[in-house]
Each structure stands twice: as structure tokens, then as C-alpha cells.
């Protein structure tokens, strides 16, 4: 089998939030710690980490990056771990609507030698907007 055809191991990205219920209030500081498992850390060239919101629903999507970091190359031979923190903004608040949702997430993106990348998103809540219900339902 050609090496390029060999099945690739998928990384597992574990993210630990400072708030166990992943619920934050506006202006509160988000702090996270992440670990990448399941791959050889030497294969990873760059780790990008960002805090962003996006819309999800039936129509066009929107996205806003609140925080973006691209630290230097990971130290060779060390496990892939990291942590970062940032104050959260006043809006947009997380919203679980019917035709559109607003989601906040921590996104860890790994770039491998050869150009392949892997994206892992970890959702958290900003604010406390109630989940939308269908009309007529309690």
C-alpha cells in the first residue's frame, strides 16, 4: 500500500473549560486547557486556537472570530497540551432558535506536515437566553 493511502489516525482533542457546565456570562473570562491525543506530536506543525461564534441554521451562515492565536511550533518530543484565556464580549449571546442558532466555541485547529489539517470545535454558552420552543408548546 502506498504510504499516502494508509489510513490516517484521527487526533482526539480534549478541552477542559474553567466552568464545568461550559456556561459563561458576558465579560467573564473564559479559560481553557487542551490536550491532543491519538497522534504523534512530532507530526503537528502548528496549532491554531480561536474563540469564535457562528450561526447555524437553514440559511446563510455568519461567523465572528473573537480571539485568534497561532503560537509557535510545538516543542518537539513534548505532549501537545496548551492553555489560554480571554475575556468574553457582551454579545452575541448563545441562542438555540428554531431556524437559526448562535453558537460559541473554542476551536483547535491542527496543521500537519503535508498540508492536512484537523479542526475540533468545543461549544460553550455565553449568556442565558432561553431555548426557543415551537408555538403552542409549553
Amino acid at each position, binding site marked *: 500500500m502506498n504510504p499516502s493511502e494508509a489510513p490516517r489516525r484521527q487526533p482526539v482533542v480534549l*478541552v477542559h473549560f474553567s466552568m464545568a457546565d461550559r456556561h459563561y456570562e458576558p465579560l467573564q473570562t473564559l479559560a481553557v486547557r487542551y490536550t491532543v491525543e491519538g497522534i504523534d506530536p512530532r507530526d503537528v506543525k502548528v496549532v491554531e486556537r480561536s474563540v469564535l461564534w457562528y450561526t447555524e441554521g437553514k440559511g446563510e451562515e455568519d461567523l465572528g472570530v473573537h480571539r485568534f492565536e497561532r503560537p509557535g511550533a510545538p516543542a518537539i518530543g513534548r505532549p501537545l497540551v496548551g492553555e489560554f484565556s480571554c475575556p468574553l464580549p457582551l454579545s452575541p449571546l448563545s441562542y*438555540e432558535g428554531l431556524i437559526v*442558532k448562535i*453558537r460559541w466555541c473554542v476551536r483547535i485547529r491542527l496543521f500537519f506536515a503535508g498540508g492536512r489539517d*484537523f479542526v*475540533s470545535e*468545543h*461549544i460553550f454558552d455565553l449568556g442565558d437566553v432561553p431555548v426557543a420552543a415551537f408555538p403552542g408548546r409549553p
Partner: protein
Amino acid sequence: MPDTTAHSRHHRNPFATRHTRPGAVPPLDDEGRPRDLVAVVASLAGLPQAAIVGPHGTGKSTLLKAIEVALSAGGRSAGHLRLQRRRDAVSLHAAILRARRGATLCVDGWERLGWPEAATARLLARLRGCQLVVTAHRAVGMPTAVRTGGSLPLLEAIVDRLPDHGGLIERADLADAFARHAGNLRDSLGDLYDRFERRVRRL
């Protein structure tokens, strides 16, 4: 598609745009089988201009996106342009003038152009030696490279490739949505989005 983790308050709707937009699902033929992209790209060779033709929501944009990615890998793409209104012709003409000779410009939504803008784009492309591959709802005077059409097996194959819906959507839902929307796959997926939302909130 990113690996996403959420908690119980969040329901990941597998029919949301982020999972169904062009590029998220590989291009499939009317029987729901993966399209042979190599053969599609080869069929475009030698055609200065070519069209992917089919009704609304039948996978034209998905196929065009996949063609553009394949051409990019070979260094032959001059980009991908999505026309949303007639005045986007200005961007199209500029993109053609920037394109390298022999490169391919993929243009989604050719019917948005009026006759003069389309004729100008075709003339500029010919003069620049830039290939145009476009999507349109009907024949537009270019050779038709691929004709797309919605079918129930195609909708089923797409849904099989989306994130798990947890058994909330049944095969009968697919047939019903497909019939309601007269074969428009995009609208059928929108219908399934609504059914999923309604049912997941009853859990």
C-alpha cells in the same frame, strides 16, 4: 467538517447549512453514487466553455465546488465565483482579466447575468484563453458537460453522509419531503431540518 462536541442544551441539526452546503458532501450522481471527478474534469479538457445544467437544488454548486478543488490541486484553477446579482458581472469580468492563460474560472449562477454581461464575459474569456465552467438552470449556449437532476436515491445518499440524526428522521420523511418540494434537494433538506427541530424538542 469539523469534529464538534456539544452538551445537552445543544442539538446539532444534521440538516443545517454547515453540513449540507457545497463542499460539505461529496458530489453524487442521480443514483446517489460518488461522481467520478477525474472523468468529469477530463471531460472538460478541450472545451473553452462548459456548463453544468440542472434545476434548482440538484447539486450543480456542489459539483462545481468539487471541480474547482480538483483543478486547484493541479494548479489549474483561476478561482470560484458565486454570482448573486447582475452587478456581480463586474467582479466576473475582473476575474477573467486576472486569470492566467489556460486556467479555469468556475462561475456559479450564470443565469444571474444579463445577455450583454454574459456575452462580454465569454468574449473576454476567449481573448484571455481562460476556460469558463459555469452552472445554469438551462442551456446557456455552451456545451453541457454535466446535467444534474434530483432523485430520491440521491437525497437518501446525501442524508446517509450527514451527521447522525439519532433516528428522528425516517425514510418515509425523505420521500415525503422530496415529493413536497418537487425534487428540489436543497428545499427537501430544509424541510428535513424543520422536522428534526420539531422532533428533537419533544425529547
